[in-house]
């Protein structure tokens, strides 16, 4: 069978299965909400079984579709797709820079401008992100914000955190986008310079790998020593007992009770 036909069959099957899965998810959520809204102390084994009995045909259909997909994949396997390459622009820029000792002035100036632009943008976005973290920090340090019903306090704090986190992520994302464009521009400048031989090549020299390895070794040694010291200290100050005491009882909140 031609590859295009196979892909089409798999796509149609995939779409049908996606719809079934999403419908099953919605049915499960709706059943749960129905049970919850059905009255005081709504959850009983019987009510749960009854509600899920109603949606069981959809669940069985979805399971049958999944099994069908396995059979389809065996009978009409999809050809392996070639992995796409995603090159890291920063890495490419570092490699280009490593070849070049110094660019000629007509290329050096725009390249430095791009670097300056990126650095300023990163500093500004870092400062903005830090400033955005101040209010949530102050909020958490103020105990008055956590007096009252736990759920209400947690939800309020969560909304605050999420709002600020969203803004921080937005700022970071925007900064990354602009920096990526700037890096692409700088790569173009370097490529042009290299093509026109408007640079002085860097002398090939031994890379300083041993320093990097030593640094990692030292950090590892520190981390593992501190870890063992902490574990021993924790055993003596009752930390291990605390872990056991919690784990030996069912965490009612963790399983959704209370």
């Amino acid at each position, binding site marked *: 069978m031609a590859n295009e036909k196979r892909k089409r069959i798999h796509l149609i099957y995939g779409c049908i299965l996606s719809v079934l899965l999403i419908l099953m998810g919605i049915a499960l*959520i709706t059943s749960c909400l129905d049970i919850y809204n059905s009255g005081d102390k709504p959850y009983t084994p019987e009510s749960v079984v009854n509600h899920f009995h109603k949606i069981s045909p959809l669940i069985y259909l979805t399971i049958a579709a999944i099994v069908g997909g396995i059979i389809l994949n065996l009978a009409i396997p999809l050809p392996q797709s070639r992995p796409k390459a995603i090159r890291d622009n920063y890495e490419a820029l570092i490699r280009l820079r490593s070849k070049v000792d110094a660019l000629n002035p007509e290329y050096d100036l725009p390249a430095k401008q791009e670097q300056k632009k990126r650095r300023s943008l990163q500093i500004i976005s870092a400062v903005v992100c830090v400033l955005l973290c101040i209010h949530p920090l102050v909020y958490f340090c103020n105990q008055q914000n956590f007096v009252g019903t*736990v759920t209400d306090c947690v939800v309020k704090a969560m909304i605050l955190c*999420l709002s600020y986190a969203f803004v921080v992520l937005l700022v970071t994302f925007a900064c990354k986008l602009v920096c990526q464009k700037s890096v692409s521009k700088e790569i173009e400048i370097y490529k042009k310079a290299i093509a026109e031989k408007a640079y002085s090549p860097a002398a090939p020299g031994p890379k300083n790998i041993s320093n990097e390895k030593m640094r990692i070794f030292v950090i590892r040694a520190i981390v593992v020593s501190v870890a063992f010291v902490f574990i021993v200290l924790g055993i003596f100050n009752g930390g291990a007992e605390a872990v056991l005491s919690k784990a030996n009882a069912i965490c009612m909140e963790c399983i959704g009770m209370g």
Partner: protein
Amino acid sequence: MKNTETSQKKSSLGQWISNHRPTKRRIIQLYAALLANANLKGFKSGWIYMGNAKYACTPGLNCYSCPAASASCPLGALQNALRDSNKTIPFYIIGILMLYGFLFGRFICGFLCPFGLIQDLLHKIKTPKIKKNRLTRTASYFKYVLLAYLVISLPLTYAVQNYPLPGFCKYICPSGILLGAVGLLSNEFNHDLFRSLGPLFTWKFLLLVIFIVGAVFIYRFFCRFFCPLGALYGLFNKISWLGVKMDNSKCTNCGLCVGTCDMDIRHVGDHECISCGKCVNVCPTNAISYKGPKILLAPNETGTPLKAKQNIDPCDAPGTPLPKKTKIVRLIVAITMFAVLGGALVYYNFIHKDPERVTGGEVGNICPEIEMTVYDTNNAPYHGNTISPSDTRGKVTVINFWYIYCGGCVTELQEEFPLLHDKYGDRIEVIVVHSNQEFGSNIPEWINANLSTDSGFIFTRDIENEKFFRDLGGTSAWPITIILDEFGVIQYKVKGNTTFDAMSEVIDNLLNG
């Protein structure tokens, strides 16, 4: 002719089996999931494992309220330890997390986490997939927000109020619902816990469905965007002993590794890398290999570039023939691992015994007679060293069993029970019984600091092996509340939280005859 056809079919069948056999990584994942949940008899008995093995933590996310859980969950243990951080610094759990981070980093996510395995299997369902992009890369930082807020800040904030609040476990963790709630509630012995389900369960079930459906369409949906444990381990990825590494001298920046990877990595081995090794086999210059002892995992050092189209688990990648010493060591390691798993299964399921399930203590029965020690607190109205239920005969008695690490118990004692004293005063007795297992907590000190001193409650400690609690049918879930009439007969019993209204209705009936 027939022989040729038969042998062709056999070879194609053999080829099919060879193409679809579980990879070494999958086997390791299954092994780790089984070892983390070795207490399989828990599903049948309805008990969670309550033994000394829970001093240790599993490396991955595995709720310790799952009946099969053989050890503690590191994330739950961290939140719980932070709750006590106003008294003691949580050295133990921080040390364990640092040790796991140093040894494995996010190799745990790729090989040792049971919930990661579930997501991997869900992602195999053949639907159109949502590929990673710049947006998912940015969104992957959200798990650090959850780590900072729910795992660290919330428990610390409430530690000041001495209120146990494992924020992530309570509001987000899907492992608790999938492995804990479903595992426990599917057993008929735990059906009385159904009445404790409410808005929290509904919210978490909703999230669980979203995570499960999401994992079908988006690779490792929970791990990439929500898992704080992965966020924590990711910080150790660069220095971890096991994981994948890149030899920069061989790397040509072709980008095939990043393109093949389903996680939001920027380069191999960064904080998003779960060391699944998918990139190892697509690298045309063999620049990527596994860190750690070469004797355990094939570094894929074939000396010849592999085709980029191969989709072989790098643990299985054909390489140069292994030296005899390596084969022997691997055999020893494999035998040891199976011995450990076999030993764990035997210990948890045959040697370790659950407490005996007592069917007494039901409504209509006389309350068992147990003499308990009274705590010396600021509000001890009962001037005796010990008390038993018969000491309060002639009065309606409310007995509440609680546990200091149980948030629901604490909320109930702070919010519902004081209303009983306000309404009934001396007409009823309230005995509040803490588990005999205190694990270093100073219960009287906690009571004096956090509960009203003029409540009139009698605070006691259960006797050895929590006999009173067990005799009333208690398992490992707190709280339990019972109400006795003036003759000591149990008239009301509830496992899980109760409310002032529910207790008041029963008490009013008893007082009015």
